[in-house]
């Protein structure tokens, strides 16, 4: 204020002085003009310092806020009225809009401006955590187009040795050029696939990781030589747990011999008993201690995970033995039946209905896992016997045309599987070791007793990002005991689930990108924390979905009221500059020229 008056005073003094000088000038010609020019110059000079302002009325939406999230496009937001804010510093820099303001945190900002009750969200939207703070606000969501590239993927990150890693997901293809998707790791390519069609394409890649321990594979999208995306696929592999197997044979044959040796070389505990005569047996104890197996009883069966028996031997067992097998299967034992005849001879095997078909006469047998394209090598015999599956049965392996060869069913807590394939050792003799391994792995894994883990953990979100909050859920079998959870050397205090007493939950923060250690009751496990640039599109899609769902679930919206507010406007100083210039020029020119 003071300055203003000071300036006005000084200008008045200056003006007075100038006018006085003009008046006293010897040359009286054009005195009036000169006086006018001098006063205009001084007035304009004063207005330079204090421009003229005026007030106007304009409609505004004071309760509304436009919020730009990641993925907002300039074209859609540049003509927006009202306040524009974003929390994304990258977006703030790239859009370069003067109206756009950058804030640190949306809920915090909204708390500080309680009059705002309406939000227009642009871009991919907000995460579930952020959305939960927007309860009670009127939301409008203007989503951007779905992101391109690897928009979704999931895989089995915790594997047992020799298990198949299977990566499945969706690729949103944009251009016309085909895109190759590669699963790569440990310097090798495990699988690849080419996507030609535009739009969202599902993909499925498979491979067997070779390492024991942790490794980060990569899912790579290539277009020509350009790498469009390279996303990490962390996988931890643990050694496989061996099976304890009991083989009971009515008579020794090559099938048993090869199976026995194959398991023996895998260092699995195997007991093989083959009947010589009535109550006389020949027994092999491989990788295991000697025990009495002349009588099959529950003590013996509880020690093993899988019983392989042929129908002939099953028939020869006593009623007490059969009963103990039944009980053992009920409480979890796996039973694998080898069926050779079309007529069922025992009560246990009667459940599997068989039929004979002459269709494969003079043909070899080709086995296939259902719903998989891969065919096993042909087996050189004519298969005439097939299984008829009941509604409770699940086919495990079929013939090429879909006739069931191996089928499995639940029996109590255990499983019973029947196979009508008489011999498979032909694969081993032909050098097709892989087929043999796949066949028996499929059968045994399906049937064997399930080993209950002592604890099971899960983390949410599945793809945790650096500095994100993560929730760890632990199931444990020990009741009445708080699980000991240590993450990256920090002991966590879990919370028991109210409904499920065996479930415990705990929250922590992803403090370190890469592999993080999780110690659970003394056992070490690892989870992977992703960097912020990893799987970006997948997170964007998740945000898009979450925001859309959140907005949809809201109550009906009321249009925000428009109110008129007064605004100060300034007259441009150029308006004063030109008269000033003209006046001064005239004064100067007049002394020189006229």
């Amino acid at each position: 204020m003071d300055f203003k008056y000071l300036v006005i005073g000084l200008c008045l003094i200056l003006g007075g002085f100038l006018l006085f000088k003009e008046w006293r000038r010897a040359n009286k010609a054009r005195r009036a003009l000169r006086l006018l020019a001098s006063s205009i110059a001084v007035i304009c000079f004063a207005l330079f310092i204090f421009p003229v302002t005026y007030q106007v009325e304009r409609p505004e939406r004071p309760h509304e806020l436009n919020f730009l999230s990641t993925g907002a496009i300039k074209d859609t937001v540049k003509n927006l009225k009202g306040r524009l804010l974003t929390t994304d510093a990258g977006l703030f820099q790239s859009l370069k809009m003067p109206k756009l303001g950058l804030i640190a945190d949306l809920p915090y900002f909204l708390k500080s401006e309680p009059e705002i009750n309406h939000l227009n969200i642009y871009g991919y939207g907000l995460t579930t955590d952020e959305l939960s703070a927007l309860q009670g606000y009127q939301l409008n969501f203007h989503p951007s187009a779905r992101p391109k590239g690897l928009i979704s993927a999931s895989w089995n990150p915790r594997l047992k040795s020799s298990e198949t890693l299977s990566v499945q997901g969706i690729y949103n293809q944009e251009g016309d050029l085909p895109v190759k998707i590669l699963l790569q790791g440990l310097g090798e390519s495990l699988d690849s696939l080419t996507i030609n069609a535009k739009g969202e394409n599902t993909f499925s890649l498979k491979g067997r990781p070779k390492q024991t321990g942790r490794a980060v594979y990569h899912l790579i999208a290539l277009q020509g030589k350009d790498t469009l995306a390279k996303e990490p696929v962390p996988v931890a592999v643990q050694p496989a747990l061996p099976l304890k197997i009991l083989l009971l044979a009515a008579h020794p044959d090559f099938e048993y011999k090869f199976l026995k040796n194959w398991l023996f070389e895998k260092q699995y505990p195997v007991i093989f008993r083959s009947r010589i005569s009535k109550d006389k047996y020949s027994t092999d104890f491989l990788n295991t201690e000697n025990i009495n197996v002349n009588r099959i009883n529950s003590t013996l069966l509880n020690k093993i995970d899988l019983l392989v028996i042929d129908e002939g031997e099953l028939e020869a067992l006593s009623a007490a033995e059969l009963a103990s097998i039944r009980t053992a299967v009920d409480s979890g034992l796996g039973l694998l039946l080898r069926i050779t005849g079309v007529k069922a001879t025992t009560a246990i095997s009667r459940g599997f209905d068989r039929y004979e078909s002459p269709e494969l006469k003079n043909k070899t047998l080709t086995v296939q896992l259902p719903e998989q394209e891969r065919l096993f090598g042909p087996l050189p015999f004519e298969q005439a016997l097939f299984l008829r599956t009941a509604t409770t049965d699940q086919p495990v392996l079929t013939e090429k045309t879909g006739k069931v060869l191996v089928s499995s069913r639940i029996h109590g807590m255990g499983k019973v599987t029947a196979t009508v394939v008489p011999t498979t050792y032909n694969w081993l003799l032909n050098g097709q070791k892989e087929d043999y391994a796949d066949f028996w792995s499929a059968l045994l894994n399906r049937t064997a007793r399930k080993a209950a883990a002592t604890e099971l953990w899960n983390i949410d979100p599945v793809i945790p990002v650096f500095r994100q909050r993560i929730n760890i859920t632990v199931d444990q079998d020990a009741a009445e005991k708080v699980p000991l959870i240590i993450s990256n050397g920090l002991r966590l205090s879990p919370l028991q689930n109210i409904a499920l007493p065996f479930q415990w939950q705990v929250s922590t923060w992803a403090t370190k990108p890469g592999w993080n250690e999780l110690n659970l009751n003394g056992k070490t496990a690892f989870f992977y924390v992703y960097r912020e640039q990893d799987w970006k599109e997948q997170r964007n899609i998740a945000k898009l979905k979450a925001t859309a769902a959140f907005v949809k679930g809201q109550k009906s919206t009321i249009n925000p009221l428009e109110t008129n507010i007064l605004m100060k406007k300034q007259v441009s100083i150029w308006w004063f500059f030109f008269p000033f210039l003209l006046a001064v020029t005239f004064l100067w020119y007049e002394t020189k020229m006229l």
Partner: protein
Amino acid sequence: MVEQEAGKRIYSWKRQWRIFRLLQLIALSLGFSLFAGAMLIYLFPLADWKTVVVIFLMVFVIFNLIYPFWKIDAPGISRYLDRKFPELEESTGILLRPVNELSLLERLQQQKVEVLLNQIQTPAAPLKKLGLSILFMIIGFGLSFFISYLKPLGYAIEAHSSKYRTNIVKERIPPQIASFSLNINPPSYTGLPERKQEQFSVKAATGSLLKWEIRTNEPVKTLKLIFNDREMASLHSKDGKGLEWSFLKTIHQPGFYQVELDGKKSDLYQLELIPDLPVSIRITQPKPHTTIDFGQPQRLSLMLHLNDDYGIKDASISATMASGKGEGVSFTEKKLLFDKGFNNSKSMSLSKTIDLKSLGMKPGDELYFFVKALDNHGQASRSDVYFVSIVDTAELMSMAGMTNGINLVPEYFRSQRQIIMDTEKLLDEQPKITEESFKNRSNALGIDQRLLRLRYGKFLGEETETEIGADHDHDHEEGHEEGHAHEGEAHHEEKETKQTEKFGDVKAIMDSYSHKHDIAEDATFFEPELKAQLKAVLTEMWSSELQLRTYKTRNALPFEYKALRLLKDLQQKSRAYVAKTTVKVAQLKEEKRFSGELDKIGQPSQKNTFEPLDKKTALLKRALSALESRKMATVFKTEELSLLRETEKYMVVAASDNPAVFLPAFKGWRKLMTGSNSSEKEIEKVQAAIGKMIGQEQAVPQLPSAPPASNLYRKYFNALKKGEGANGL
């Protein structure tokens, strides 16, 4: 003045012709040398285009000595002109002589000749010669281009030499080494030239003699070569001062090696060996099993192709003949040679016609043969065994197979036999009988053959000729017109009478309007395989009938025999032969069954534990993840380091077995172990190599896992099992 004028023309010709000659010689020698040089390069890949220059110079000098251009002189030209132009009256020589030396008469003649000389045309011969030689040069040029584009031989040699040239790799050579060279002397059997390279990585034929010559820039006390990380070789200094070193070694084992200078080890260098493969034999003719039927020439033409990487020394056919039958089979072995020299050629096509008769083979005998080949390194290889058999017609004629056991259609077989016998008899009697009766009998035989064919056709459910048209009235008429179908006619007449008899029989009427192809009941008698063979028999019979009816009786015989042979095969197929035995089986006593004493029967029990020989795979698998964690960190943890150290022995073995694949990874591994900074790419290279060493991962059966078995789940399960129902009722 005048005589100068005249001489001038000759002198100017002299200059001109000399230039022409020179150009001509240059053109000729250029053409020749281009052609010769191209040939040399084509034949000996070591020659290069420098040789062309050498040849050119040599040829040019020789040509100049034969046709010296500088010897073209004025007298010579004048002699030439005298010969060429009789109007010059042998006097051009005078023009060259100074006027004052000439007599009056000579002067007169000189003046006359001078006028004449100015009138005659410039001789075209030198220009023509020049043109021809330029043409020669162009041809030489073209030929040389053509040869240099000629592939086959040039390619083979190129490929060979490039096979042995290690691709130029950048090597890290210890700084103490000023210069070095490596002489590779391949073994003599390869016929490859000795070569020299200034690179430590070697790719050479097995058994090559390598000679290293290393010169250091400062005296070195010891210089060693370490092969495959275990074999050490100390070098001897040539000059005693430790500046020049050399070493000789014959290599038989691939792998890698290092140079050690005063304890300082160099990088690893690859030592790749190319083994000599045995001769590959490809027989294009005959097929693995050949049967020679009656009437076919008893010859076998054999065609094969041999290939070797260095040279074939020898090849022969080893033939074994089996003659006789039953227990009296005797074998004779014979070695047949190819009538062609081998002289170490790399690839050759051979053919040989084996005359089976001259080998002493009779009908019924069999020949087994295979081809043996020897390469110039002394490695032998042999082909598969091929079989040739001559059909024994006498065996076919015998009734042995028909007299015992079941016999489906004996009389028909006999008929085919009868036809053969009749045909042979007819052929024997041919000179004695008239042409007319020969033809008649031949035709009659043809008819017999046809009948037989029709009877067999019935087995296949084929429509028989008698039935064709019989079912249709309009065809029936045509059937009548066919003169030669005698029996057909007879049948028709019979049928007609039958038809009148069966007036009112609905089935008969329907039959006459329906067109029957196959008789379904007949068709089910045989299996498809059998049917196919029967069809083949019928085809042979068709051909035989054709020959007989066109009076080419002799030509019919092979078909007849083949038909009989096929019939015999058919007959044998439908029978299982069980010879009579005189075994007497003791009567079973039912009451004694399952009552034996088992107390003496032991119960064998084996116990075994599998001890894996090495934990290689498990170790390598763990090493993979140790390397993976190294990607994140900059150093190894101590336990990871010790784990990786254990993998060294496997890496060394892999690298020495297959240096081309594993050596770069081994180098990367070494670099990693020294703790130097390695990029992610290099680590991945090592990982990829370890992955290769582990090989294909196979599925393993394993214990499936279940979530923790809490009491709650168990209670649910038990409740459901007891059938209590979900609502607890």
